[in-house]
C-alpha cells in the first residue's frame, strides 16, 4: 500500500517536473514539545533553462533571474536566519537542516568562471546586486569573509557538463540582523506577492518574534533523466513560534502571571495542592487557532499554484481533532501522523486546534501522559548534537570548545566540521585536539582529515574544515586555542566593546557509503568575541605623547653628541636664559633711567 502510494507520489512529482512551468506552495504545521509550533512555508517553481536564457521568466522572479544571468551563477543558496534551534527538545531540524543558515546571513553559490580572479569579480557583482535586492548588507561580504569550502558543500542540482569551471564561494555575515526589510523583498519574489495563499500568513511581527526562523532561497538546475533541464527556485521559510507568546493579545503584550484557575499544573506531583503548582508539559495541551498564531487568517489560495499539491498540511496523529472553516476538505494521509487540507480558491481558511478532550476520567496520570505522547508526533532524534562555546577569559587569548554528541547507540557518524573565522582570531592549529568525553588523552583517530587555510591579516579569514568520525553513543570535545589581535582604531565598529560576531560552524553529516551527499546539516550558534580595544578618544594625545617621548630621546642624544664639553666657568656667557635675563635687565635699566630722567625734569 505504502509503496503504491510512494509510486503514485513519484509519478505525480515527475509529472509536476515535466510540466513546462509550474508553481506550488505548501505550508506544513508541526506542533513541537513545550508549546512550540514549527511552520514550514515552501514555495517552489520551475522554469526550463531555454526559457530562462531567452528571458521568458514566467514564475521565476525576473529581478533575481537577471542577477543570476549577469553573474553567471549556476546555483545559489541564500539564508537569513535568526534564533537557535533547540535540538534537545525539538529534535531533528526541518528539511534535514538543508534549508537553514547560521545566525545572520549566509550565501553560497557556484559561479561559472575561467579563473579564480574572475570568480571573485563575479562574486562581488553577485553580492552587491543581492544586497540591493534584499535590503541586506551582503555587500560587506568581502575577501575577509569569503571562503572557498573544499569538503563541506556539494552542488544540490545537476550540472551535467560544466563542473570544471564552477567555483564555489561561501560568504557569511553573522552580525546581520534579519528583519522585516528582508521579508518584504522576499515576498515580492513570489508569483502571488503575498496577497493570497499561504504567504498571507507571513507577518513580520510574528515571523521575527519567533524563537527560531530561517528564510532560504535556493536556485538550482535539475535535469530529469527524460526531458529538458529546468531551473528550480525554492523559497522556504521555517519558523518555530512560541504559542504562548503568539497568543498574547496585541493590545496587552506585557506578560503577566496567569490567574490561578488558568494555570496548567502537573497534578501527578506529590506536592500539588491548591496553592502549589508545577507547570505541566504543555505539548499535549496545545490549543490554538491559525489566526491567533499568525495574527491573521489565510486568504484563499494562490490561483497559480498546482492544484494537485495541498496548500496546508498538519503533522499530528489522526486521533487529534482539528476544526476547520467550512468548504475545506480534510484528507488524512496514510502514514497516520499527518493530514492535509484542500481549500477552495476564494475562501478564507481558519483552523482551530483544540486541546484534546480528556477521555476516561482525568485522574489517571499515567494514562494522561500516554495520551500526551500520542497527541503530538514525537520529535525525531537528530543524527548529532553540537554546541560550541568560548573558553578562557580576558581579551588576549581564548579557546573554542565544541561538544559533539552522537546519540545513536549503534552507528557511528561521519561528518565535516567547517569553521570560517575572522582574521583577527588567530587560531593555533597545533592546539587542535579532539577527545572522547571521559578519556583524558586526545584521540588522534577522531579527526581523519584537516583542510586549513590560514588567515592573512586584513585580507582573508581562516578556513578550517575537518572530517571527523564519532563512535556510537560518544561525546567528543573538540578544542583549539586562538589569540585575539588588536586592530587599528578605524577598523573597530562604533560599538567596539560589544564584541565581534563569529560565524556559526557548519557541520555536514555525510551519507554512509554512497556518493558524498549531505545527509543532514546542522549549525552551531554564532559566538561573540570581544577584542582588546584602544582608547578611541585620543589619537591626537597618543601621537603627541609618543612623539614627545621620541623627541626627548633624540634631543637628549643629539645635544650630547653635538655640543662641546667645557668647564663650568669657561666659554662664552652661555645659555638662552642668561642671555635673556641680561637683555631684560638692560631694558629695565634703560626704562629706569628714563623714569629718573622724567622725574628729574619734573
Amino acid at each position, binding site marked *: 500500500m505504502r509503496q503504491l502510494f510512494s509510486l503514485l507520489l513519484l509519478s505525480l512529482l515527475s509529472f509536476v517536473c515535466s510540466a513546462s512551468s509550474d508553481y506550488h506552495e505548501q505550508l506544513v504545521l508541526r506542533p513541537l514539545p513545550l508549546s512550540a509550533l514549527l511552520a514550514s512555508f515552501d514555495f517552489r517553481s520551475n522554469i526550463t533553462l531555454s526559457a530562462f536564457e531567452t528571458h521568458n521568466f514566467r514564475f521565476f522572479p525576473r529581478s533575481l533571474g537577471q542577477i543570476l544571468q549577469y553573474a553567471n551563477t549556476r546555483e545559489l543558496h541564500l539564508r537569513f536566519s535568526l534564533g537557535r534551534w533547540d535540538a534537545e527538545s525539538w529534535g531533528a531540524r526541518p528539511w534535514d537542516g538543508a534549508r537553514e543558515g547560521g545566525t545572520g546571513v549566509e550565501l553560497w553559490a557556484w559561479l561559472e568562471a575561467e579563473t579564480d580572479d574572475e570568480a571573485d569579480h563575479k562574486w562581488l557583482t553577485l553580492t552587491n546586486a543581492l544586497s540591493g535586492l534584499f535590503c541586506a548588507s551582503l555587500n560587506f561580504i568581502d575577501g575577509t569573509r569569503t571562503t572557498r569550502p573544499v569538503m563541506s558543500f556539494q552542488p544540490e542540482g545537476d550540472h551535467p557538463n560544466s563542473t570544471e569551471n564552477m567555483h564555489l564561494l561561501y560568504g557569511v555575515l553573522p552580525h546581520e540582523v534579519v528583519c522585516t526589510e528582508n521579508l518584504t523583498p522576499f515576498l515580492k519574489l513570489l508569483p502571488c506577492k503575498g496577497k493570497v495563499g499561504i504567504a498571507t500568513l507571513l507577518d513580520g511581527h510574528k515571523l521575527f518574534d519567533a524563537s527560531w526562523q530561517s528564510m532560504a532561497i535556493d536556485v538550482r538546475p535539475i535535469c530529469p533523466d527524460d526531458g529538458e533541464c529546468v531551473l528550480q527556485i525554492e523559497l522556504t521559510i521555517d519558523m518555530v513560534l512560541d504559542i504562548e507568546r503568539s497568543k498574547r493579545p496585541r493590545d496587552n503584550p506585557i506578560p503577566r502571571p496567569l490567574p490561578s484557575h488558568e494555570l496548567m499544573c502537573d497534578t501527578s506531583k506529590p506536592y500539588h495542592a491548591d496553592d502549589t503548582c508545577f507547570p505541566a508539559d504543555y505539548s499535549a495541551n496545545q490549543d490554538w487557532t491559525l489566526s491567533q498564531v499568525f495574527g491573521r487568517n489565510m486568504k484563499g489560495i494562490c490561483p497559480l499554484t498546482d492544484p494537485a499539491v495541498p496548500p496546508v498540511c498538519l503533522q499530528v496523529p489522526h486521533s487529534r481533532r482539528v476544526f476547520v472553516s467550512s468548504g475545506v476538505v480534510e484528507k488524512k494521509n496514510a502514514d497516520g501522523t499527518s493530514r492535509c487540507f484542500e481549500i477552495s480558491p476564494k475562501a478564507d481558511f481558519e483552523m482551530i486546534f483544540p486541546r484534546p478532550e480528556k477521555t476516561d476520567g482525568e485522574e489517571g496520570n499515567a494514562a494522561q501522559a500516554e495520551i500526551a505522547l500520542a497527541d503530538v508526533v514525537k520529535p525525531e532524534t537528530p543524527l548529532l548534537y553540537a554546541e560550541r562555546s568560548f573558553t578562557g577569559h580576558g581579551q588576549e587569548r581564548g579557546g573554542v570548545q565544541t561538544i559533539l554528541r552522537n546519540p545513536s547507540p549503534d552507528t557511528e557518524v561521519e561528518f565535516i566540521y567547517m569553521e570560517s573565522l575572522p582574521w583577527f582570531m588567530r587560531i593555533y592549529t597545533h592546539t587542535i585536539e579532539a577527545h572522547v568525553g571521559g578519556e583524558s588523552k586526545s584521540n588522534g583517530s577522531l579527526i581523519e582529515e584537516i583542510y586549513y587555510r590560514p588567515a592573512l591579516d586584513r585580507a582573508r579569514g581562516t578556513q578550517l574544515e575537518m572530517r571527523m568520525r564519532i563512535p556510537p553513543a560518544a561525546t567528543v570535545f573538540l578544542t583549539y586555542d586562538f589569540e585575539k589581535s588588536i586592530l587599528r582604531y578605524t577598523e573597530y565598529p562604533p560599538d567596539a566593546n560589544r564584541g565581534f560576531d563569529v560565524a556559526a560552524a557548519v557541520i555536514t553529516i555525510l551519507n554512509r557509503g554512497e556518493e558524498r551527499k549531505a545527509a543532514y546539516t546542522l549549525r552551531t550558534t554564532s559566538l561573540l568575541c570581544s577584542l*582588546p580595544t584602544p582608547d578611541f578618544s585620543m589619537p591626537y594625545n597618543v*601621537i603627541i605623547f609618543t612623539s614627545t617621548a621620541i623627541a626627548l630621546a633624540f634631543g*637628549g*642624544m643629539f645635544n650630547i*653628541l653635538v655640543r662641546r664639553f667645557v668647564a663650568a666657568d669657561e666659554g662664552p656667557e652661555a645659555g638662552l636664559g642668561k642671555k635673556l635675563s641680561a637683555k631684560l635687565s638692560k631694558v629695565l635699566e634703560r626704562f629706569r633711567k628714563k623714569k629718573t630722567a622724567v622725574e628729574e625734569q619734573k
Partner: protein
Amino acid sequence: MVGGKVNSGRMTALLVGAVVLRLAIFYLLPGLSDLLAGRVEISTPVTSFKRLQEGLFLYQHNVSPYDGGVYHQAPLLLPLFSLFPNFKSFPLGTYQLYIVADLLSARALQLIADSGEAGSSALFTSPRREKRWTGLIVAAVFLFNPFTIATCIGRSTSVFTTCAILHAIAKAVSGAPFSAMVALSFAAYLSMYPLLLLPPLLLLCYDRQHPSCAIKSAGKFAITNILVVAGVLAALFQMSYFMTGSWEFLSSTYGIQLTLTDLTPNVGLWWYFFIEMFDSFRSFFLAVFWLHLSCYVGGLSIRIRRQPLAVLTLLLGIFAIFKPYPSISDTSLFLALVPLYRHVFPLMRYTFVEASVILYATFLGPSFYYLWIYAGSGNANFFYAITLVWNLGLSLLVCDLTFAVLRDEWEVERPEMVGKEIRQI
C-alpha cells in the same frame, strides 16, 4: 696559570649555576614557563615561541607557514626545531637549545669583557680602564639578569639573535672579521635590525685586525666585509627559498617589521602609535620611525669613532627602545653590555633615577596590562603610559651612558677637569 685555572673553575661553576637555575624553573614551576611564553613583554609577533610552534606544525604538515598571519620568523628556524623532538611530548630538547644559546652568549660576553676593548680600544685608552669588572662578573650579570632568565624561560627566539650579535662582537674583538661578519649575517637573517650594526662592527673589526693579515685600506676592508655579509645573507635566503619554495617569507618575516601589520601590544612605542594613527599618514610615519631608528648609526659611529664597542652598546640600547617589536630580551642584551663600561659609571649622572624608573616600569607594566586585558578596570592607556615610562627610563640610561663615555674621552684631553663641574656649549 693558577689564576687562569681558578678563573675557569669559577666560570664552570657559574655556567652550571645558570643551567641549574633554568632547569629548576622549567621543571619545578612548569606553569611559569607557559605564563612567560605568553607575556607580551617577552613574546612579540616576531619572536613568540607559540607562533614558532604553529609555524613548525604547518611546516611539518606541508602548509606554507608564510601564507598566513601567524608565523613571522626566519624560515631556517623551522628545520632547526624539527630536529628536536616534539615540544609537547619531550620538552627537554627545546629547553637545552635555549639554555645552550644563553651559555654561548655568556661565553662570548666573557671574551669581550676579558679583551679589555671597552677600556682601551685601538685609538683610545681610558684613564680609568683599571676599574673594570672581569669577564666572569659580566657573564654572571648577564646570566642572572631576571630579564635574561625570563626570556630564556619564555623561549623567545630573540635568544638566538642575542647570541649571534654577541658572537659577532666577540669575534670582531678577537680579530676575526670574517667570523664576525658571518655571525652578524645570521643575526640580521633572524631579525633584520642587526644589519644596522654593520658600520660600527666594521670599524671594530678594522681596529682589531691581526697585524699579520691586516688589510690596510679602510675602503677595501669595508667592501670585502660587506661582500661577506651580502654573500652569507644571499646564501641564507637561497636556502630559505629552497626550503619554503617561494619568496613569500621575505614579506612575512621582514615586511611585517617594515609595515607593522600586526599591532600586538609590546613594550615599544610603535604599536599604540600605529593603532591610533590616521590611515593617510600611516606610511609616512612608518618611514619617519625607521629613519629615526637608523639615523643614530651614522651619528654615533662618527662621534664616538674611537670606541666602536661603545657605539655598538649604545645602538643596542637604542634598538631596545625604538625598534618595531622590542621586548625585554633586547633590553637584556643592552644591559649585558653596559657592565663593560664599569669604568665610566662614576661619570653617569642619573643612575638612581634610571634604576628606579626601570624597576617601576618592570613592576607596574604587567599589572597595568592585567588591568586592561583581564580585569577590565583600566584601558589601553594604562599599559601605553607604562611603556612610555619604560622607554623614557631606558632612553635616559642610553643618553647618560653616552654622556659618560664622551666625558671619559674628553678628560684625556683635559686631565685637570676630573671631578669638576662641566657644561656643554
